[in-house]
Structure formats: C-alpha cells, structure tokens
C-alpha cells in the first residue's frame, strides 16, 4: 500500500555510537523504536521525526539527515532562508541585521527571512479562521512532526489541520519567483536553502505532504552552520539592511508566538510532543471549548528548542526577546511583496494506519485477541529489557512476528526453571538395567 518513498524520514541511527540502551524506546511518542541485537532500530513508517530520541540519547547516536553546507555550490544563484529560531543562537549579536549579514557572507547571494513569510501565513490563517466556523478548533500545521503525529495517531483530527503552506515553503516560493522575474535567472539555477532547527522540516522538504515538490533545494541544520556564522559575526562592521520581518514573524520561534500574531484570545498553545499528545486526546474527546486555534509544537519551548539548534532553549528565549523588542521599536510595516499567491496546500495528508495489526479486519481481531492473551501473561513491568517500550508493545511485536515470548527475560527465566525441574526429574530416573527397584518387580 505504501512505497518506500512515502516513509522517508530524517531521523537516523548512528550504529557506531548506539549502545543499545533503552532511553529512546521509552520516550518515542509513536513506539517506533526497538532494540534488536544490541542496537536501536527505527520502524520507518511510524517515525514522525519529532527528534525526541535525538534529544534523549546520552550517546548522541541519533542524528538527522540534512544537507552539508557545501551543497550550495551546486547552484549559480544562492539564497538562504533562515528559520526564526536562528536569532536565539548567538550571544553577542547586536541586531538581526548582524546575524543575517554574517549568514549571507558565508556564500549566499541573498537572504530572505522565513519570519517574513510567517507574517504572510499569519494573515492567511486569520482569514481562514474568520471565514469558517465549521471546523473547531483549527490546528496549526506549522510543526510537521505534529502533522505526522496526527496522521498516525489522531486520524479523526486530520480535518482540523490548517492546510496552509508553511512559512518555509512560502518564503522559498516567493524568492524563487521574484528572482526568476527580476533577474531573469531560470529557476533551476536558483538554490534556496533553509536553515533548520529540526529533522521534521528536513523531511517536509524531502517528502512534502502539502505539495508535489518543495521549492526548497536544501536543508542545512542550525548546528552545522552555527560556527561559520559565529566566526563571521565578529567581522561584521557595518551590517547590511536585511531585516524585513516584524515582531509577529520572529516570535514564531517561540511557543505561543504564532498564536499571539493572530491577535485572538481564543487560542491554546502547547509545546513538547508528550504535552501535544495530551491536548490532542482532549480535542478528540471534545473537551476543548472556546478555542478557535491550536498551536502545537513538538519541541519544548517551540522551535527554539529544536533538536538541531545549538543554544539551550531557555537561554535562546532571552536572546530572542532582545530582537523582539528591537522589532517593536522599528515597527515594520505589514505590507511587502508576495503575499498574494494562494497558500492553500495542493496535496493532502491521509490517515496512515501504521498501527493496524492486519489489513483484514477478521485477522486483525484474531491477532488482537492473541495479543491480549500474551500481554496478560507478561509481568507488566515495562522494563524494556526485551527491546520493546512496554510489555504490551512486546506482545504486539510477537503477534506481528518480529519477537518471541522468551525475549522477555522473566519468561526466559520461567522457561529455564521449568527445564531445570524437568532435568531433575529425569535425573532421578534410572536406566532399566540399573534400576534395582524395578528388578524387584515394582
């Protein structure tokens, strides 16, 4: 039903570094990781690229597939579009212009703030919310990990997702079209590179759900480009005037920022993937009232807490605050180029029934019945020694045929004990030729 392409995801395992501990399997919100033969394995179709495992791995054995910095040399005209979270990373930057100038100096011809595109998305979101009262609450699609979570775990909420392009996508499209028109450069010669705080964004470029093909040509992680920008910052004497976004746009880096920009009180902002799950459960249970808009971000603190950022999220927040205040003083106007294209998705997200035990309902029932029986018989300690996140998950793996009962160390011990008893019994039995008791005719 699904081909390999459908299951592209960016989070990967570094075999060398993995010690086979159970930290990641326990934290994964979709139970997508198992430890097998001493190494963690990611079940591709379940991974939503939230980056939780990257964060919790004490051995840094989880990484994200992003592009190396030198990918930019493949294109004639190079444009960098940094995520707003980049502004929280640098200690001594006097202004956003300083950061953007240093970033551009790495080898780009142009820079365009994704924060600016975020303001365009904000305007479109406002229109959407005021136009339709039939869907309540709307759920932001800003975080691709949350969209993918909804796809695999909360299918009944797919209709609530705001099907507007992400600021990254809008930014890439605007710059590409403008450069093509103004500078007469063919689109294939223009390389647009997103500077990303996370794996999820990398996936939405490589395997987008909102459109056929992304306008972004490469995704470079904040981590990978950080030192280059930092070194350049010291050399920026007179920064170029590159800022275009107002405070509404740059606040998107923070949890709650997208909501504040909408100018409504009827919002709920939640961050951290496990908190997001709690809130999505509440929405499914019809428990969220008087809320028009849900902002849900996989990372604690929002994108500033992204797994591929450098600075601690709380420190980054303080840094960002300075730039928010500067933007407030400057009072950027809300107009600007390129807001007129329709932002609605051309593609769509579908329910991914990856938890299903079998395509056939009757067979799925049978498997579930066995699963429950096995589960009842397991110790219920969720110790993780079997490599599955919980006893129930092991029962599920057994039913799916990817594990056996004695993978549970307690079950194994039981079996060994049974064997030992049998051996002891056998040991007392003498061969007939030596057995005196029997000779006596007993």
């Amino acid at each position: 039903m699904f081909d390999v392409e459908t299951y592209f995801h960016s989070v990967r395992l570094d075999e060398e570094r993995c010690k086979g501990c159970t930290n990641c399997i326990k934290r994964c919100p979709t139970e997508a990781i198992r430890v097998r033969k001493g190494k963690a394995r990611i079940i591709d179709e379940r991974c939503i690229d939230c980056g939780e495992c990257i964060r919790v791995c004490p051995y840094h054995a989880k990484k994200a597939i992003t592009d190396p910095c030198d990918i930019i040399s493949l294109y004639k005209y190079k444009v960098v579009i940094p995520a707003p979270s980049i502004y929280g990373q640098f200690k001594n930057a006097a202004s956003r212009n300083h950061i953007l100038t240093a970033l551009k100096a790495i080898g780009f011809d142009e820079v365009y703030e994704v924060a600016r595109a975020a303001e365009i998305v904000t305007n479109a979101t406002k229109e959407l919310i005021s136009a339709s009262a039939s869907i309540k609450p709307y759920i932001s699609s800003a975080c691709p990990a949350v969209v993918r979570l909804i796809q695999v775990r909360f299918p009944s909420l797919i209709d609530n997702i705001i099907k507007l392009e992400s600021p990254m996508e809008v930014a890439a499209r605007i710059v590409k079209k403008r450069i093509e028109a103004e500078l007469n450069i063919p689109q294939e010669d223009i390389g647009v590179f997103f500077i990303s705080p996370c794996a999820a964004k990398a996936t939405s470029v490589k395997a987008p759900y909102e459109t056929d093909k992304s306008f972004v040509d490469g995704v470079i992680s904040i981590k990978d480009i950080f030192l280059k920008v930092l070194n350049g910052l010291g050399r920026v004497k007179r920064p170029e005037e590159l800022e275009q976004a107002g405070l509404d746009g740059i606040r998107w880096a923070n949890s709650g920022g997208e909501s504040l920009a909408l100018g409504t009180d009827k919002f709920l902002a939640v961050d951290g993937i496990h908190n997001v799950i709690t809130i999505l459960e509440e929405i499914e249970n019809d428990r969220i009232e008087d809320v028009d808009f849900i902002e849900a971000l996989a990372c604690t603190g929002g994108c500033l807490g992204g797994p591929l950022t450098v600075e601690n999220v709380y420190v980054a927040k303080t840094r960002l605050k300075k730039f928010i205040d500067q933007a407030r003083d400057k009072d950027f106007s809300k107009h600007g180029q390129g807001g007129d294209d329709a932002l609605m998705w051309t593609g769509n997200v579908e329910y991914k029934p990856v938890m299903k035990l079998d395509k056939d309902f009757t067979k799925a029932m049978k498997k579930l019945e066995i699963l429950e029986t096995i589960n009842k018989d397991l110790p219920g300690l969720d110790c993780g020694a079997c490599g599955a996140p919980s006893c129930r998950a092991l029962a599920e793996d057994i039913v799916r045929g990817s594990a056996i009962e004695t993978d549970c160390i307690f079950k194994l011990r039981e079996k060994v004990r049974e064997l030992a008893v049998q051996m002891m019994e056998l040991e007392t039995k003498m061969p007939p030729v030596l057995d005196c008791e029997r000779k006596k005719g007993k």
Partner: protein
Amino acid sequence: MSDGIIRLKFDILPNDMSAAGEASSGVKKVLNQLGVEPQKIKKAAIAMYEAEINAVIHGGGGIAEVVIDKEYIEVKIRDEGPGIADIELAMQEGYSTASDEIREMGFGAGMGLPNMKRYSDKLVIESEVGKGTTVTIVVNL
C-alpha cells in the same frame, strides 16, 4: 477462550480526574490496531469518555467492560454509586448535579449523557438509587 470476540476490562478509580480517560484512551488504541475507521473510533471514544468521567465524578469509580465483535463495540460502565433517580431529567442538556469544585475543573456542564446519546448507536442506562448505575454504549463498526 478463542471465540473471535475481544473482551477488555479497565478499573475506573474514584475521585482521580487525572486518571479519568485512561480506559477510553486504551480502547482508542485497540480500535486503531484493528484499523477501525477514524470517525467510528472517535464516536466510541467520546461516548466512553463521558461515561467514564461520570463514573468518576458521580459514581465513585467503577469498572469498564468492553466487548469488541466484528459488527460492533459494546462498552459497559458500571458503578456502585448513588444511582440516578430521574433518568429522563438527567438526560436533558445542561442538567447537572455536579458540585462547584467539579465545575471549576471544567466538568459538570450537563452534556455528558446527551453526548453519549449523540455519539452512540445504542445507549442503555440502568440505575437504581442507592445501588448504582450501569451505562451500556454500543457503536456499530
């Protein structure tokens, strides 16, 4: 044992709002594994959740017994609480005897039973004052 019918049982703890919802959440997970249509899962989950909450706040806790067959899911939520004197009255939208404390926590809007009716394909309420209440919800799959 093996009759192709799935039976699940959950304890519903009294006075613990933080644990309330665990049973319906567990059932949701199971229905997901069976590949039941999302909208049907939602119906069953909401109806069950409301009944579960009622057992916590009105019934002093109880048990949930779930039967899943090919054609339907049946959820029976049983408590040994005070019972409902006038079921017809209790079924009215907005009717609630919940305390102010419960209301402050965002419950007690009097919409639980009406929602159960709306989201289930069959709803049976059996109650005896002083003995307890059993709510049976059926959602066709």
